[in-house]
């Protein structure tokens, strides 16, 4: 075990940085490139039952400290995704299959397919803030989440992670529902519901009017969620939201994250961000006499 290695719900990661869902995750070749760039694991684009075009453009707004996106869950559908997984699983790092659906049965049948494609784990998208009938619309109801996690747990053997939304006052209830249903990890957070307006055009910029805010703008929200989740459940937590540097990762780990995901920084910093983070983590460990990253998980819980 090298210093940066972490164990996430039984999955061995060479380092704690995973590619976040929806970023360069729609094709096998682009996933491969992220593995080569140094990511410890890859999460695919959220895949559904059928091909989906997503929303018309504009689907993304660029802000000084982040993005607002309303892609609308475009994707080739689970059947065609077999081909992409065949390529992605050659990367040598765990590939986690992200899924979206509206009802437990559909989540389960998608998960069975993903597992058969070689996914090391399943990530349930219970949190996309802009797709009608999916994501956050099902993910803010603890009972619905319990039913989805239970049915997927019954269907597959690989670990099942639930990705949660910060756009609710019931985050901790939802997380407890994941734990009670036998889920293996919690991923937090997905994007924060937001919008942008053009003053000159006097209208919203995104075609979908609202979208999800990501990037450094949401890091304090992600940190708060991970911190609270760490006190509410025993499950390992994957921290996501605005991570661009090793310091960001250390903050998330001290809040309670076992591993992290990086999304927007791939656009803002480039693919080199994975190596930069890992180099920074190794330096911090050496300077502070740490043998394992797990030593700092939850370290900020002093009260």
């Amino acid at each position: 075990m090298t210093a940066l290695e972490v164990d996430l719900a039984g999955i061995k990661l060479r380092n704690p940085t995973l590619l976040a869902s929806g970023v360069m995750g729609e094709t096998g070749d682009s996933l491969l490139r992220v593995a080569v760039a140094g990511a410890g694991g890859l999460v695919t684009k959220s895949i559904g039952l059928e091909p989906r075009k997503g929303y018309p453009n504009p689907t993304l707004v660029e802000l000084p400290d982040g993005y607002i996106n309303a892609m609308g869950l475009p994707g080739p559908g689970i059947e065609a995704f077999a081909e992409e997984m065949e390529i992605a699983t050659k990367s040598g790092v765990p590939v986690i299959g992200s899924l979206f659906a509206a009802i437990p049965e559909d989540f389960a049948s998608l998960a069975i397919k993903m597992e058969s494609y070689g996914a090391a784990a399943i990530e349930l998208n219970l949190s996309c803030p802009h797709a009608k009938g999916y994501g956050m619309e099902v993910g803010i109801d603890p009972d619905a989440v319990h039913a989805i996690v239970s049915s997927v747990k019954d269907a597959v053997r690989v670990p099942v992670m639930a990705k949660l939304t910060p756009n609710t006052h019931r985050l901790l209830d939802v997380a407890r529902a994941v734990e009670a249903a036998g889920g293996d990890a919690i991923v937090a957070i997905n994007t924060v519901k937001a919008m942008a307006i053009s003053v000159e055009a006097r209208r919203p910029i995104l075609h979908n009017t609202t979208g999800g805010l990501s990037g450094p703008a949401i890091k304090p929200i992600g940190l708060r969620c991970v911190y609270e989740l760490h006190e509410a459940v025993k499950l390992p937590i994957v921290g996501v939201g605005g991570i661009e540097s090793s310091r960001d990762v250390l903050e998330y780990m001290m809040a309670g994250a076992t591993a992290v995901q990086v999304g927007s920084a791939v656009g803002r910093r480039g693919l080199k961000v994975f190596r930069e983070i890992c180099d920074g983590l190794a330096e911090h460990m050496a300077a502070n006499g740490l043998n394992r990253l797990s030593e700092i998980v939850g370290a900020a819980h002093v009260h």
Partner: protein
Amino acid sequence: MFIEARITERIRSGRGITTLLFDRPMEAKAGQIVMVWIPGVDEIPMALSHISGVASITVKEVGQATKALSALNVGDLVGLRGPYGNSWDLTPRRILAVGGGVGMSPIMTAVEAVNDRSRVDVAIGARDAGEIIFEERARKASDDVRVSTDDGSYGIKGTVVSLADAMMREKRYDMVLGCGPEIMNKYLLKACNENKVPCQLSLERIMKCGTGLCGSCVIDGLRVCVEGPIFTGEQISRMTEFGKCKRDDAGLKVKI
């Protein structure tokens, strides 16, 4: 960066081809692209057709968004996001710049950026005379500008690839720059390989985010909006999808 810009000038460059100049400059390099928002309609990728002084795009009408964009008037508003992507490498000594149809747009900025009439030659081609654009602009920036049309209605009769091929046989070039439909790029690459001249070609795919996140613009895992839109002949020769297939809005492979 996102800016709101107004149209200051609208020039008919060819049949169904319109150049729109904006009231805001844009710090960009030749070959770079912007995402152009037409409020209430769509947002689409466009190469910049002027980069020094004013910024402009040159639009060919092919569908709903390009028609709406072409119909905008002086004073109308668009949103501009970018510039995105890489730019032409203009360091090689003798350059042949090849533009097919509206593909002349990023080729023209390259020719002007070379800023030495004797170092860069230009081959302009289109289906017919109506779609030949920027001939005068090219003649101001290059000593040797030649024109071809598929139907012979103007210039030499034939494709712009056969024109470029003839120029490569006649003169020595250190680099070819190309932009046009994928089928043109495909044969141009072949001609460059036969004449042993390295090339850079500007490619197109569906673009959504423009910033390297969504992955909709990939060709064999390379993003047109980050690693492209300009790729070297060597990169393109290694692509399995170039000239054969592209991804649709859902990310499904479709034949070209």
